[in-house]
Structure formats: C-alpha cells, structure tokens
C-alpha cells in the first residue's frame, strides 16, 4: 500500500556531502566559494553554509557574503539565502536592511512563486525596521492576481501583527484581510480566516466580525478548501455565537458532513462546533428530537477516532472524557470500544480506563469487571494498579454491583501479587467508607495478607479498617500491636492511622487495650517530632482523660459519605472545555488562561495595557479599570434628573468618543425592563457623514454571559448629523458567552462591544461597565428563615463591608429605599432597630441574579447621618463587589 520508491531518493541528490567539511580555514574557503563566479560553486557553498547552520554551527560571520548571493534568478539559491536570513536576521539587524531592496524587487517579480516567497520571508524576519518596508509589498500582495500570492500575504498580515500591531491597523490591513473572506479562491479564504482568528486570539478583540454574510462565505468555503483550511474555518465557527437556535441549527446542518472527513482534525473541530451550538438549540420537543438525532450522528465518528494513530487516539480520548461528562448518552452503548488492547501504548490504556469508569453502568458492569480483572494480570505495574483501583471506583459508583466488585477484588488478593494486594486494600477501604457495615465479612481475608503490605498508603488503609471494625475483629488489638512494634519507623500517614485506630480500639474495648493506648499516646506525644502526630496525640489524650463520652462522639462519630468522583469537572469549566475541543486546553482539562500568556489582556480587570495599545482610547469616565475604586461609580451628569421613582434606569456613561467612531458619540448603560435585560445607548451623531440607521453589534465574552438577541440595531427615526437618538439592544444570558473566571479574582464588570455602522462601514469598539442590578431576577424573594440560615452558613471570608456616604436625604427613608430597591429586584427581608443604639436600624435585603447567584445584604442606617453601612454576603465572592456597587449606586442615585 505504501507508495513505491520514486527514484528520487537515490541518485546524485545526496546532500550529506555538505556536512563533511570540517577542516581549519573552512570559513575562509567558504567565503571564497561564495564569491565565485560559477553558479554551481556558489550554490554548493551556500548549501555548505546551510548545512553548518543545520548542525548548529555559528555561521553568522558569513552574513554579508551570503547576502551577496541573493541577487540571483535561481530560485533554489534564493530560497537558501532567504532561509539563512530568517535564521540570522535577529543577530545582524543592520546588515539585514541591505536585503530589503532585493525583497522589494522580488515582491514585484513576474513569477508568483518568487513574489510569494519574498513576502513570506520578509514576514519571518522579525526586525523592526524591516517591517516598515514590508507594508508596501504586502499591500500589493494582498491584491495580487495570483491566489498563491494572496494566500501567502494573508498569513503575512498575522506575522506583521505579531511584530507591529499598530502598523496593521494604520495600513488598514485588517479590513483587507476581512475582505479576503469573500475571495473567490478557497485557499485564500481559509488563510484569511486563520490569520484573523489568530489576531483575534492574541489581541482579545473581535476582528473576525462574523456577520450573516460572512457566515455564508465561511460555510461555502468549507466545502471547497483544503482539509487544513476546513479546520481553520471550523475553529473560528466554534468561537462564534449564533444569534438564536435556528441559526445554530442551520450551521450545524452545514457542518455535519465534515464528520465524514478522513482527517481526524477536521472531525474533531466539527464535533466541537456541533457540541457548542447544541447548547443554543433550546429544549422544546422538536428541538430535543433534533438533538437526539444529532447525538446519534456523533457517536460513530467519535468511535472511529479510536482507530487512528495512538497519539491522535490520546487526544481523542482526552476529549471524549469531556464529551461523556457533558452528554453521557452519546457513547453510553459503546463501552466495548474502550476496552484496552494488549499493544495499546500505556498512555492510551490509562485514558481508556478513565472512560470505562465513566461509562460503566448496571447494564455492562459484569463485562467491565471481567475486563478489569484481565488487565490486573498484565505486566505494567501502573496500569495494573489503576485497573484494580478502577474496580473499587465501580463499586463506589454502582451500589448494586458493589458486591460483585468486592468479589473480584478478593480473587485478585488471592493471586498474592504484592502490588495488586496493596492496591486492593486501598480501594476496599474506600468501599467500606461508601457502604459502612455491609461487607465486613471480608475483613478476615484482608487480615491474612497483613504481612504483604509494605506501602504506607496500603498499610494506613488496612489500619483504618482494623480500627473502624475493631469490635468485629477478635484480635484487633493484637493486629495493631504488631504494627506498633515498628511505630517509629513508619511513614507519618501510617503513624497517624495507628494512633487513631488504637484510640478507636480502646474506646470500643477499654479493658484489654489500656496499656496499648497509653503506649501509643506516649510514642506520639513524646517520642515523635511530627507536629501533626503530636497534636493529634494530645487532643486524644485530653479527650480521653477528661470526657470519654465526648471522645466517643468525636472519634467514633459518623463520617461524611464519600462520593463517586467520576463526573467531577465543574459544569462551568466543562462548558469552557467543550468549546476548546481538539486544543491543548482540552487535553490538559484546563482553561487556556491557565497556561497561555496573553499578549494584551483581553477580558480581565487589568485591562490597562490593551487600552494603551489602542491609540484612540478615549480617557473619558468609562468607569474603567480599578475595581476597588468606588469612584468608578461616579454620578454622571448625563444620567439626568429623577424620572419615575419605581422604574429601573440605566446609568448612562459616555463610553465612546466621536473621534474613535468616525463621528458618533455613545452613552450607554444597562437596565432590566419586565425581566428583559437591555442595553440602552444614546447616540449623538456629531460628525458622521451619513444618517445613522442600521448598526450591527457584537459582544465579546464577558463575566455575565451576555449576548445580544439580535445583531442588528435599527435607529428609528434615523439619527441625522448633529442630532441624537436612542437605541436599545435586548440581551440574553448564554453560558457560551461567559468569559472564564478565575476563582479568587473579582469579576470584571466590563462588557466589550463592537459596533459596525452599516452606512459607513466603520467599526468601532468600546467597553461598558455592566451594572449588576440589571441582572437581578424578578423572583429573587426568599423566606426569612431560609435567609437567616444562608446568612449564617456563608463563610465570613465571603463578606464585604463598606460605607456609602453623601446619600441624598430623600433616600434615607427606609420605606422609600425598600420600594425603590424592589423595583430593581432587590427584595426586602426584614428590618429591626439595633438594640442599645438609639436611632439605628438594620435592614436585610436579598437578591438573586438570573444566573442563580445569590447575594445577602445588611444595610445599617442611622438617623441624622447621610451615610449607610453595607455588609454583603455571597458564595459567589468574585461578583460580590459588583453587587455591592449596585446597591451603592442605587442608594446614591434614584
């Protein structure tokens, strides 16, 4: 099946001879040859230079000599010289400039291969001063007649962006790139998409700007471009959020045929798009039928991935691990394909085991146990151990199969293979924890194998079992006693268990074990240097000597039930990872932020850097940046005077200056009306040449998962130059749009927005701070008793304090506050005067966001003082600050 040798391999093309010159004076000789007049001598000399470069020898001293050879019509020689340049340009930036002329000349060559080569190479030379000269040729290349040159140029824009993003913006290359999405040639489209996605990723800006028209172009190109291009397009589709379920379904339909592609990367990216979009399809009956049929379509391609090369299988398995967590039904009947083959690489076997445990059910447990038993006799120790422990995990997961699992473990213990026995003991301990007092009958068998145990974890587990079931084991004290002989040499984990087990034993059978417990306590408190052990020893000692009944309650108390941990990824993280299928992130099971350095921070609190990049950044009062600065919530003149008391309203802030958006000034804010979240924008047409009629809007992922229900905004009536108008955007919350949050950092209030003016084609960006009250749900009420429980249960660490001063007098009346808060879905729970403090009153409020985050607030008012103390408690600590700011804002401004 392999292609026949094509003759090419042999013959006179053997390059290895170039590696052989090793003598002294070699450089001098080379230099002479590089200046030779005979073409073939010159070519050979350059090859020798490249050969030296390849083996890691420094040949940078020949820079000028090699550079001299660049003026040639010989394309092979040219390629070699260019290759040399790419390698050494960094070390010789000044000299590299000498090559600029050739590059510029070549970029206008009659031969498209040479034009492309010049542009491609120039982009790879990361010398600042070269880039200035690159712009001209690049601009031409982007409009070249030959698609080969255009597709090369498209990638080159991404290269340029890496070195000099401002140049790309200045020259309008991004727009040109965007235009290339509509190119007639599929390869050009694919590379333009790849370049745009890359720029979007590194800049955190939405430069893709997927609109309905763009979408159609992408879907059309999907059918025509190379397999690699298909992956680029699918990956950028996966980042796009369809406007509604119907659009999502439409795209899925066009993507589904890709599941049939022979290239595994295409298949995986298609799976990613489908799974991400499925979220949006809603759950009506028709839709759930559609989802079911899609799920059926996904299984076969996923199974087929397991027939690919082992490395690809590994990637596939790591992803399937996520997929079965997200949608367990897809592969529920396919467990057999995850059975390990003898010759699978170990990393594949380990991943298959994980998935077997995830898919195991009452239906297939018998077969799985047979398999796991078989694996337990294989040679690879790690794999065997994991298989044994898998049997235990099955038992913990499936109550009705626990007994069968224990049966298999007992059989394995009979093999007397040291590490199998030890691992079995460890998992049996877990089974005992999960099902207390059910399987003690096997303890005798375990005890027979005491002397095989030499690993700390296994020993500790065994000792725990003995202590826990001391009353059922006739000679528990003797067994423990044997361990005690070597107490001092044991691992700390074993020592701790021994201590606890002995105390348990004593509490259950005080008569016979008095001496033993004394000895252990002595050993622990006096002989040991381990603080953990000493502390535990002292605690037991004191408990036992003061109140044995209390000791019983503490030591023999009920333990929390352990859970099956097979579906353990946090749902939020899981959603993020599903959107990352096929990438490193999905292999590591970590969000990209965890390991990738961002060049300019995208959505995070420390956004300043990006703003510095952006020359047009308008330093207005956008409430930017420092979250701890309460000043960010300043009262702004534009908010106007009090309108209707019981209505919500948006805090309108100036978010975009006219110079940034080609003449449109924008004020924006969020509010909730009848349960719908809206962004309201006031637009002043300062100097836009045309009337503002239609706009298209897109939001970046944000901390709240907000996305517009429609991308189109129409201004009715149109806003003529010099006048202003209002536009409203309805928003919904979708998990796809949720920017990943880091646990301990306050969530960024920023919502990054891109607007395209359909009349002028101008696109501008700005950020609006979200005011959390717009997200509060109408059904945020809570029973008083539940409130008190919650208040108590939230850890003090998740508490936020603050004082709001300068509250307008009319807002100091508690009844008014309660009513006004209610209009903003902040619900009154209780109020009471503070005892022993004349004129002080505490009021409790509760609010719950549409996304089910809960906040509990305590406000303290004092008569005659225009300030109020706030104490806020929440489990969603990263959003606490925002909730507090919302309350402050409402108190200050009604």
């Amino acid at each position, binding site marked *: *099946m392999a*292609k026949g040798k*094509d003759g*090419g391999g042999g013959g006179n*093309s*053997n*390059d290895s001879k170039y*590696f052989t010159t090793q003598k002294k004076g070699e450089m001098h000789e080379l230099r002479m040859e590089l200046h030779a007049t005979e073409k*073939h001598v010159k070519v050979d000399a350059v090859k020798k230079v*490249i050969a030296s470069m*390849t083996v890691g020898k420094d040949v940078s001293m020949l820079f000028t000599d090699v550079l001299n050879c660049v003026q040639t019509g*010989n*394309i*092979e*020689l040219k*390629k*070699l010289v260019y*290759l040399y340049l*790419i390698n050494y340009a*960094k070390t010789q930036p000044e000299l590299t400039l000498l090559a600029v002329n050739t590059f510029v000349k070549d970029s206008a060559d009659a031969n498209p*291969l*040479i034009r492309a080569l010049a542009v491609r190479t120039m982009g790879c030379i990361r010398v600042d001063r070269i880039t200035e000269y690159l712009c001209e040729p690049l601009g031409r290349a982007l409009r070249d007649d030959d698609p080969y040159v255009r597709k090369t140029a498209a*990638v080159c824009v*991404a*290269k340029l962006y*890496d070195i000099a993003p401002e140049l790309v913006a200045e020259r309008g290359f991004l727009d040109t790139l965007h235009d290339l999405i509509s190119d007639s040639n*599929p*390869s050009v489209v694919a590379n333009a998409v*790849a370049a745009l996605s*890359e720029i979007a990723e590194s800049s955190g800006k939405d430069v893709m700007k997927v609109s309905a028209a763009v979408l159609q172009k992408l879907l059309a190109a999907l*059918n025509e471009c*190379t397999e690699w291009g298909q*992956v*680029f397009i699918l990956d950028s589709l996966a980042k796009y959020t369809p406007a509604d379920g119907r659009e999502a379904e439409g795209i899925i339909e066009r993507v589904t045929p*890709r599941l049939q*592609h*022979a290239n*595994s*990367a295409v298949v995986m990216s298609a799976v990613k798009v489908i799974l991400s979009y499925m979220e949006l399809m809603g759950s009506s009956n028709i839709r759930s039928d559609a989802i079911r049929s899609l799920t059926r379509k996904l299984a*076969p*391609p996923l*199974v087929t991935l397991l027939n690919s*090369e*082992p*490395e*690809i299988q590994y*990637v596939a398995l790591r992803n399937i691990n996520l997929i079965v967590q997200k949608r367990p039904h897809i592969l529920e009947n396919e467990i057999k394909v995850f059975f390990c*083959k*003898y010759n699978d690489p170990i990393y594949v076997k380990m991943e298959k085991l994980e998935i077997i445990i995830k898919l195991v059910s009452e239906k297939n447990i018998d077969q799985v146990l047979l398999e796991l038993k078989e694996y337990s*006799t294989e*040679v690879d120790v790690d794999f065997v151990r994991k298989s044994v422990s898998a049997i235990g995990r099955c038992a913990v997961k499936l109550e009705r199969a626990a007994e069968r699992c224990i049966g298999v473990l007992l059989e394995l213990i009979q093999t007397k*293979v040291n590490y199998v026995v030890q691992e079995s003991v460890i998992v049996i301990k877990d089974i005992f924890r999960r099902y207390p007092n059910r399987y003690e009958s096997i303890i005798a068998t375990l005890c027979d194998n005491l002397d095989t145990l030499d690993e700390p974890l296994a020993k500790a587990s065994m000792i725990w079992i003995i202590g826990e079931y001391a009353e059922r084991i006739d000679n528990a004290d003797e067994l423990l006693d044997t361990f005690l002989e070597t107490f001092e040499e044991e691992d700390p984990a074993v020592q701790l268990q021994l201590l606890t087990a002995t105390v348990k034993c004593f509490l259950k059978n005080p008569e016979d074990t008095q001496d033993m417990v004394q000895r252990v306590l002595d050993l622990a408190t006096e002989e040991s240097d381990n603080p953990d052990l000493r502390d535990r020893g002292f605690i037991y000692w004191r408990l036992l000597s003061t109140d044995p009944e209390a000791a019983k309650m503490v030591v023999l108390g009920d333990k929390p039930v352990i859970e099956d941990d097979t579906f353990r990824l946090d749902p939020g993280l899981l959603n993020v990872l599903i959107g990352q299928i*096929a*990438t*490193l992130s999905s292999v590591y099971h*970590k969000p990209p932020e*965890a*390991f*990738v*350095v961002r060049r300019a921070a995208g959505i995070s609190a420390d956004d300043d850097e990006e703003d510095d990049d952006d020359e047009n950044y308008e330093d207005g009062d956008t409430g930017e940046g420092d979250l701890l600065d309460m000043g960010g919530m300043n009262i702004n003149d534009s908010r106007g005077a009090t309108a209707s008391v019981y209505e919500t309203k948006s805090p309108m802030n100036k978010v975009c200056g006219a110079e940034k958006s080609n003449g449109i000034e924008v004020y924006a804010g969020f509010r909730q009306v009848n349960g719908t979240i809206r962004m309201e924008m006031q637009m002043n047409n300062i100097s836009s040449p045309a009337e503002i009629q239609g706009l298209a809007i897109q939001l970046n992922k944000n901390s709240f998962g907000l996305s517009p229900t429609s991308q189109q905004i129409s201004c009715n009536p149109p806003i003529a130059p010099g006048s202003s108008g209002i536009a409203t955007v309805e928003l919904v919350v979708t998990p796809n749009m949720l920017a990943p949050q880091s646990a301990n950092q306050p969530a960024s209030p920023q919502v990054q927005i891109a607007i395209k003016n359909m009349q002028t084609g101008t696109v501008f960006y700005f950020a609006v701070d979200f005011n959390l009250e717009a997200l509060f749900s109408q059904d945020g009420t809570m029973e008083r008793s539940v409130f008190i429980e919650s208040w108590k249960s939230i850890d003090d660490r998740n508490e936020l304090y603050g004082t709001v001063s300068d509250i307008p007098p009319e807002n100091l009346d508690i009844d008014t506050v309660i009513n006004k808060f209610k209009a903003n879905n902040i619900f009154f729970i209780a109020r009471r005067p503070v005892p022993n403090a004349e004129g002080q009153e505490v009021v409790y409020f509760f609010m719950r966001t549409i996304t089910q985050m809960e906040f509990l607030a305590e406000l303290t008012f004092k008569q005659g003082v225009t300030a109020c103390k706030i104490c806020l408690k929440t489990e969603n600590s990263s959003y606490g600050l925002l909730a507090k700011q919302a309350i402050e804002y409402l108190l200050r401004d009604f």
Partner: protein
Amino acid sequence: MVASAVFITDLQGKAIISRNYRGDVPLTQVIETFAKYLVEVDDEAKKPVFHVDVNGDVQSGEDVGATGTGGEHFVYVSHQNVYLCAVTTKNSNVALIFTFLYRLAQVFKDYFGSLEEESIRDNFVVIYELLDETMDHGMPQSLDSNILRSFITQDANRMSEDSKSKPPVALTNAVSWRAEGIKHKKNEIFLDVVEKLNLLVAANGTVLHSEINAAVKMRSFLSGMPELKLGLNDKLMFEATGRSNQAKGKSIELEDIKFHQCVRLARFENDRTISFIPPDGEFDLMTYRLNTKVKPLIWVEAVVEPHKGSRIEYMIKTRSQFKSRSVANNVEIIIPVPPDVDSPSFKSSVGNVTYLPDKDAIVWNIKQFHGGREYLMRAHFGLPSISAADVDPDGKKKGENSWKKPISVNFEIPYFTVSGIQVRYLKIIEKSGYQALPWVRYITANGDYQLRMA
C-alpha cells in the same frame, strides 16, 4: 495558532533539522528540553503531549498551569529512528498538529522513499524547502506530495537559470489534490476493497470486540480531469433514492464512512452519491466501519501446560469459520512463549512451525487454509530449572506474565468480504471522452486480531 516551530531529532533528542516558524521560542533551548524529556522521563510516564513550564519543569494534565502561565508545549510523534516534534506557546489545536506531523512524515516518505536520520541528512535542502511550503507561520498549507513535486524537486539538474516555474494551480484551487494536464497512455483505474477484521477474544472464548475496518483503495491512472461516480450497494442510498425494493441482491449498512478530501461531502450528505475527481496514483478513497457481530474467521484455542522448572507444552487448535469455497492465504498464528524456553519441538497436522527467540513466540504458518477445516499443532519446550524470574525478584511479575500476551493471527482471504459490500458501478466521465477500465478486487484480511490465552 498552531505551531511555533517544528523539528526532527534522533532517538536521543539531538536535532537533525528544524524550522522556527514564528520566532517566539528559543529553538536551541527548546530542543535541549525535548532531549531532556526523552532521557529523564520514564517511558511509562511519557505522553505525546506535554508542557514544560517557565522553570523548565515537565508537567502533565493535572498540574499544567499550577506554576503560572508561559512555557512551551510539545507535541510529538516517532517514526523509524527519528522524532517529529512541534512546539507551541499557545492553546493550539493539537489534533491538527498531530495530523500535520503524520502527513509531513508521509510527504518525506513519498519524496525520499523512507524517513530516517540518513534520508534527512541526505536531502536537507529539499526538506527545508518542504518545511517552508507545508507550513507558514505555524499554519499547515499544502501537504500533497504529488502537487508539491511539481515545483519542489530533487532533480540535481534543475538549476536552470530560467526558473519560470509557476505555482501549480492545484496549490490554491478547490481541487488541490490533482494537477492539470495529466496524461496516461492507458486509462485505467484499480479499486481494492480491503476489509480488515479487528477482533478481541477473552480468555474464556467470548468475543469482546469485533469490528470491520475497511478501506476502498484506488490506484488511478486517468488522464485529464475525470469526474468519477462510485455506486455501492449502500442501503441508505437505495432508500434515499427510493429504490429500496429494486435493489438486486442484498444491500448493506455502512457505519461511519470517512472520505478522502476529494469526495464532495455535502453531496454525499444530500443524496448519498459518492462523486469526486480523483488524485493521480494511489489513495484511500473511503474507509468505513462495520460494527456488526462478525464470527471470528479463524479461531484459535490454546491449552498450555507449564511444568515449572522442567518443560512447557502447548496444544493449539485452529478452525476456519468461513465458507469452504474461500481460502485464507498465508495464515500466520503467532503464539507467545516464555522468554527462557529451550529445545523446541513441534508436531502439526498442516503447515510448518518456527520458534522466533527474538520475539519470544512461535509462528505456525499455513500457506492455504480452506474454509471449514480444523487443524492441530503441539509444541513442547524445555524450561530451565531456575527461571529468570527466580533470580531477579524485581522482574518477577514480568517473567511470569510477559508470555501471556494474546495470540495474534495474520491472514488474507481474497474474493471475499465480510460486509458483503459490492461495487455496482464506477462511472468515469472526462471531457475528451476516453473509455477507461475499472478493475475491482475484494480482500478480507486480519486487522488487530487478538485472542487472549487462558
């Protein structure tokens, strides 16, 4: 987005050739890190994707990112005596990188006949050119060796001054796999339907897993730009075209069909028509999987009687479970034996048996195995009185169990498919109107065929 750099090293991790596409990684240092990984990490702990953080510590899935962001990610495959590795600093598409690396290896094989240390050194100039053309800024471009050959050649005489070579249209065209103006004296196309049987049988004889992995392989020698249409006895196609009753003979249900990039997928999704412009030469047009229960075509039972310290005896029974008019050719039954056996002796009713000490296995060779037959073979070995396992306590488990590898079987049955797939027609239309002959063959062979020993 994809790879920062690609490099090829020898088995010790020493660089043979490299290309830094994006200049955002210190390549020399990165290759040293890779070499360190190869040497220092236990084989059993190695994974084909790994991360090295800014401090130079290797991290696997659980702890990636624990020491902050940054560092490099390595993605590698091995081939003969070399490693192909890509490095990235971003959240790249790993599936894409792996398929790229495999295809790159294929391109090198097509060019140089083999991909190994020597062939790389012998052709480094062309390899640099290929690295330049197959990937740009870390994004895969064209990896079709037929097309690449038309403008990157190893021809030593090509240094003609007038390098008028243009980029082939196929490089950017929608038909990126076929050059224009191909001419063959004789227009022929060969079609091989090869079905491979993957089988896993438990020690107690139950079939744990059986599936057919099949490929329709083509060797196309057609001139011009031919349009091809392939008709199979595909049940869903009959249904889609409303001819489920008309279909002569039986139709079959294929599971998860995968197509070569030349097949129009949207069209197939629409009406199950397989239409395409083929590449020139050899390629896999489609692969499919069949999950139906397949009877193990060649059944093997083994009875092993070890007598520790003296001898070990094998009784192997094999049976062919297909129709008697079919014949399995070149059947090889490979039975693992302990590593320290000596003085082998065999008795078999058919074929011949050889002991392969370097593989710790015996191979029972049956040239022609007709359907519905059963044969027997006995093997006898001596065992040393002190086994290797006794001497080396650490290797105890290994010594005892390594020969418990499953039995594997190789075979080929021509003119037979398990699925019953049939090529109904292959229409070839070219605007010059030539007549071309399609040749069709069917073969069933072993895939991953394993029977565990008791």
